[in-house]
């Protein structure tokens, strides 16, 4: 299914497959358009199954001239059956797509894999990004592997774990005094002035965004080439949310799956919920907000794909919810204690939304549900600090016995 052009999602103007992300006629976002696959479903499936245990197995559906000869192995993360959580919430069948298993512990390794490979094909010599945290680490690590210098722009008040882990790879970290939307505005300007820089989520964003489709491809393959009924996924810019649906649609169109795109349920934090607010208000106009939430990886007050996320949730019979910081903390705990997966704040938002949907009766006993856990709890440790007590004893058996009765088993 070779990529054919970049196409404006608003006015359908097409452009060559270059480093551009905005329609010059209407400023709408550009998306990669493909020719219909020349292969049958059986041929496509055989090629996928014979491919590597990484996202490159889906090369037929990715916008690259060729798959990189080597790269940090990304994707094919576990799809974990979550029976204890399903039972707790009253859901028929629940699966967790555990994206903490990627090289830098978040789904961002996927989008960076595609963006970087395309950037190299297009001849760029420097990689950069505007990050809410997880992207910083992914850009830094994949650039290090490829041997390209990286500039990572982040809000100055980002979690220290995310700044430290990105800096460890040798990237130049630029802390910007402001929130993510300020960082994004700055990077949009810098991108226009640095012609040899590939900003993964600015000038090569159409390629970058395609990486999130692989979340859907893997899910379907891991379910034995079947579709889930419902998906719960976080919304920051709305890119992952909309591309997951597109991934399912492409597999359906190629004859690899039969059925419809799942009902798409989006999750936001109340302190930054422009998309949930638009959904609740019955409009697709996402009024920007000033984020105020501990879910910093979702703290985009001015979401680029917000209108499309709202449309998608409505069209598929899904929803978009927002949860409080306390609810997301409880979500982190709930996921950890029922599945053994420790997620960051964004995953807390997703799990809390899952619980909310179940309580509301939107996820039923007949539903097969997949929740996307996009990042690792080790990067947002403050979210669980103080949520339990650590016993402090002398190294004597009697001291242990004394506290044992008070410790929950």
């Amino acid at each position: 299914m070779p990529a054919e052009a970049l196409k404006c999602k608003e006015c359908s103007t097409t452009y060559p497959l270059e480093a551009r992300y905005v329609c010059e006629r209407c400023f709408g976002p550009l998306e990669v358009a493909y020719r219909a696959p020349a292969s049958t479903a059986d041929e496509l499936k055989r090629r996928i199954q014979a491919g590597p245990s990484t996202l490159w197995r889906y090369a037929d559906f990715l916008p690259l001239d060729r798959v990189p000869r080597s790269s940090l192995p990304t994707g094919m993360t576990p799809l974990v059956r979550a029976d204890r959580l399903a039972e707790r919430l009253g859901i028929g069948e629940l699966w967790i797509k555990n994206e903490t298993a990627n090289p830098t512990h978040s789904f961002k390794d996927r989008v960076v894999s595609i963006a970087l490979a395309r950037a190299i094909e297009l001849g760029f010599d420097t990689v950069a990004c505007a990050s809410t945290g997880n992207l910083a680490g992914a850009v830094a690590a994949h650039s290090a592997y490829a041997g390209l210098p990286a500039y990572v722009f982040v809000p100055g008040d980002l979690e220290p774990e995310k700044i430290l882990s990105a800096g460890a790879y040798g990237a130049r970290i630029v802390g910007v005094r402001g929130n993510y939307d300020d960082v994004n505005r700055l990077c949009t300007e810098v991108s226009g002035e640095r012609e040899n820089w590939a900003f993964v989520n600015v000038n090569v964003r159409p390629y970058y965004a395609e990486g999130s489709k692989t979340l859907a491809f893997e899910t379907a393959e891991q379910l034995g080439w079947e579709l889930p009924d419902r998906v719960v996924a976080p919304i920051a810019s709305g890119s992952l949310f909309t591309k997951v649906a597109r991934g399912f649609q492409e597999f359906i169109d190629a004859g690899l799956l039969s059925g419809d795109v799942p009902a798409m349920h989006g999750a936001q934090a109340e302190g930054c919920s422009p998309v949930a607010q638009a959904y609740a208000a019955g409009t697709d106009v996402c009024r920007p907000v000033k984020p105020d939430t501990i879910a910093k990886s979702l703290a985009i007050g001015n979401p680029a794909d917000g209108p499309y996320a709202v449309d998608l949730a409505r069209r598929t019979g899904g929803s978009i919810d927002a949860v409080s910081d306390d609810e997301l903390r409880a979500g982190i705990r709930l996921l950890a204690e029922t599945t053994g997966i420790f997620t960051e704040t964004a995953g807390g938002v997703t799990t809390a939304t899952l619980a909310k949907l179940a309580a509301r009766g939107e996820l039923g006993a007949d539903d097969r549900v997949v929740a996307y856990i996009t990042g690792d709890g080790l990067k947002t440790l403050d979210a669980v600090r103080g949520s339990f007590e650590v016993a402090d004893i002398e190294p004597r058996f009697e001291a242990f016995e004394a506290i044992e009765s008070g410790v929950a088993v």
Partner: protein
Amino acid sequence: MAVTIKLPTQLRGVAGGAAEAQADGSTVGEVLEGLYAQHGELRDRIAGDDGELRRFVNVYLKGEDIRFLDGLATPVADGDEVTILPAVAGG
């Protein structure tokens, strides 16, 4: 009152290659009208038929998104800087 308008690379082609322009006006909307008067093609790129900004165009006054201010009616002062940028970056 003269205001500096910074243009994104995507719009410079229809503004004679200029990276910025000067225009007069007492509000952001009036300044943009002044910009359109200099470069007619910019109107259709930035604004819809109803005169409102297209949905993927962001306009900032001194770094602040005008949707947090008073939109196109936001007052401007002499020497202010208005920045036009595409909205689709990031995430």
